């Protein structure tokens, strides 16, 4: 790594070159190659898909109000939860955390003027909306019905939309792979002088560990999707046991991707939390290196535990024990992070901004989701609750209580960097409490529903479960109201929000040392870094930024 830093330190070169600012609406806002605009494009698109996915979620909850179902046929219900899951995983959480916040923030945090391959970045984004539309177009020809995991043989029997689903997710995968390569090269090669690995902000660490997961795991998923596609369209025998194939093969290929993908959906959120907590407790983050290295440990372990999704699929007993132990091991680096975050809060001067509240909410709910994860790692317990609402509860505690809370914390935190204005704090507090209560009211009862035996992915159920299902449904409306409030707040604040100035939170990382919204070239003078961020008692750890907040054009105008 030393050689890489040295080449940047040598002066001149990449650290100093800037793009000419494009002219015209299309080049500026539609086919932009600026990482910040692309980040915002990702976020807007992902939030639009979140509205669609959220509407599907509410359809599910309305259906489950009555044990006898009511508004949908079982077939339609299958389509609705399958597309809901696919949307939330591939069109909302992953694009928000990597394409959205990743693009928007991390290049600035390492002192770069753009990502390594700006044109590739634009291409990555523009594969994403068409792929999402393809996924929704599958409703017209019979959407996938086997859940977001699409296990054969069910997915082989699905309508034509299942092939469309495979193609759409494949496109998203290509986009993710390119984003991963782009981010990895950017972090390895384009850090500002002095920005060593142990001085990088923790959000950059989150992206740095996620990028190889995006790059490697997503390609494996691509192989699985291609195999499913050719079996469906051309009768190739990958998953057909009568011709030597095996449905288990899909599960191996799929989970070899999709388990690491779980960490794609949480590691950047860990990064966001690691930025928000020290800023609003005015304390250096506790155990910087432990937080960074535990992310690496999680990423490496993440590739070794995929078969814990297959404990009930007929995995050899000799394999179950190692996969169980490896899975439980992940609790150690995750626990290290939780303890570091709590220790950061200890004795800090805590400011209860909305962003901080979401971060604290994250700590509470994600920890609960992590603990049920350890339960599920134990084979005997997994055999009992497999395919029940306990799984639904666990994954929503991790993905909504973890990733989405992280996204919301990041949205309130970095909103000024996008618009130059703050989001409304009072509305934000309301949104947080509605969200927190609605979320727990929706998903907490699912734990015991699952232990009692309510199966997931079924349109009608035993009437004895109806009471708690109604509770969950009513609270899910509260949660939706909270998200609508956040959306309203974000739209309202574009024009009416309080002007923020460059650094409303007195934060220490690089993106706060330049104007809000961030200018096209990011930095007039590429800073040189001489210490780690987060030490609130010391002067800023950067040199060469004195001119940033004064007026005037960048030092050298763009040529050709």
């Amino acid at each position, binding site marked *: 790594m030393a050689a890489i830093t040295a*080449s*940047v330190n*040598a*002066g*001149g*070169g*990449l650290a*100093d*070159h*800037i*793009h*000419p600012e494009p002219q015209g609406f299309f080049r500026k806002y539609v086919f932009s190659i600026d990482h910040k605009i692309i980040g915002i494009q990702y976020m807007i698109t992902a939030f639009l898909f979140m509205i669609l996915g959220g509407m599907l979620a509410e359809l599910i909850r309305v259906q489950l109000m009555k044990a006898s179902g009511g508004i949908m046929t079982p077939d339609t219900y299958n389509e609705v939860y399958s597309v809901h899951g696919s949307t939330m995983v591939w069109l909302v959480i992953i694009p928000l955390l990597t394409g959205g916040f990743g693009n928007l923030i991390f290049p600035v945090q390492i002192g770069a003027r753009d990502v*390594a*391959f700006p044109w*590739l970045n634009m291409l990555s984004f523009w594969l994403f909306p068409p792929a999402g539309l393809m996924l929704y177009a599958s409703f017209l020809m019979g959407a996938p019905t086997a859940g977001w995991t699409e296990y054969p043989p069910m997915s082989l029997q699905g309508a034509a939309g299942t092939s469309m689903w495979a193609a759409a997710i494949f496109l998203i995968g290509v986009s993710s*792979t390119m984003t*991963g*390569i*782009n981010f*990895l*090269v950017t972090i*390895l*090669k*384009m850090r500002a002088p002095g920005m060593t690995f142990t001085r990088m902000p923790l959000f950059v660490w989150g992206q740095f560990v996620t990028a190889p997961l995006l*790059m*490697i795991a*997503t*390609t*494996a998923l*691509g*192989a*699985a999707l*291609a*195999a499913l596609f*050719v*079996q469906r369209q*051309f*009768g*190739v*025998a*990958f998953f057909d*046991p*009568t*011709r*030597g*194939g*095996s449905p288990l*093969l899909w599960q*191996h*290929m799929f989970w*070899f991707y999709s388990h690491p993908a779980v960490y794609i959906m949480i590691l950047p959120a860990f990064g966001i939390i690691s930025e928000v907590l020290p800023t609003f407790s005015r304390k250096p983050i506790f155990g910087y290196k432990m937080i960074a290295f535990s992310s690496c440990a999680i990423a490496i372990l993440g590739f070794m535990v995929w078969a814990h999704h297959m404990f009930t699929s007929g995995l050899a007993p000799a394999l179950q024990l190692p996969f169980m132990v490896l899975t439980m091991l992940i609790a150690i680096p995750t626990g290290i992070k939780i303890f570091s975050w709590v220790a950061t809060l200890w004795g800090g001067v805590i400011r209860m901004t909305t962003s901080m509240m979401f971060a604290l909410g994250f700590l509470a709910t994600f920890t609960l989701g992590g603990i049920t994860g350890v339960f599920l790692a134990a084979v005997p317990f997994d055999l009992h609750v497999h395919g029940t609402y306990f799984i639904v509860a666990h994954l929503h505690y991790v993905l909504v209580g973890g990733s989405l809370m992280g996204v919301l914390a990041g949205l309130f935190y970095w909103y000024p960097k996008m618009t130059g204005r703050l989001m409304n704090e009072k509305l934000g507090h309301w949104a947080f409490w509605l969200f927190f209560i609605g979320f727990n009211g929706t998903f907490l009862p699912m734990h015991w529903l699952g232990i009692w035996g309510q199966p997931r992915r079924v349109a009608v159920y035993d009437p004895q479960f109806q009471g708690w299902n109604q509770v969950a449904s009513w609270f899910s409306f509260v949660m939706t109201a909270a998200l609508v409030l956040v959306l309203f707040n974000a739209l309202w604040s574009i024009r009416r929000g309080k002007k923020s100035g460059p650094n409303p939170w007195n934060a220490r990382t690089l993106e706060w040392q330049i104007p809000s919204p961030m200018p096209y070239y990011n930095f007039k003078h590429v800073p040189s870094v001489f210490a780690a961020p987060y030490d609130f008692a010391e002067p800023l750890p950067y040199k060469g930024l004195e001119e940033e907040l004064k007026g005037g054009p960048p*030092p*050298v105008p*763009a*040529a*050709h």
Partner: protein
Amino acid sequence: MAVATLAHEPDQLYVETRELRIQGFLLFMVSDLVLFSSFIFAYLYMRNSGQGWPAGGPKLDIALAALNSIVLFGSGATMHFALENWKHRNFSKFANWIVMTIILGAGFLSGQVMEYIHIGARWSDGIFGASFYTLTGMHGLHVFAGIIYLTVLLLQALQGKYTFTKYTGLTLGTLYWHFVDVIWVVLFSIFYLL
């Protein structure tokens, strides 16, 4: 590339951009390798599970495949000579070697087509057909894409897009071609030798 520089030596920017592009390309090859590995894993997994595998092993023509492999490895050598000649500033030799590479690549592809006809098995014939045609087909597609890639590189070189000191595109093309060779070594081993 639409990039303006600030005063410093322009070559520094070129050197660093070259490093970026090569590193990005290496990472692309890693992810491509994962794509192949997934299918190779699937093939070995299915083969060892034993069901539906043709009794006594499938009838593959090792002689034809070996000949074909020699053609492909030969093209790797000619591509190497092409780049070396570029580095030694010999344009005409470079052009000859790269044309040779393209011809050998096309030769490999026609050999593959002959083999497909020769085997008489279909894509949908059990797990052997599934793995064999998917993997060799994917490799064939890579060779095909490589032929187009090298042709474009040759045309660009003729148009003067590369100089004898700045030729990152040629380096990447060579890397790609060697990568396709290496994949073939693995595929040949698992299908014909194992």
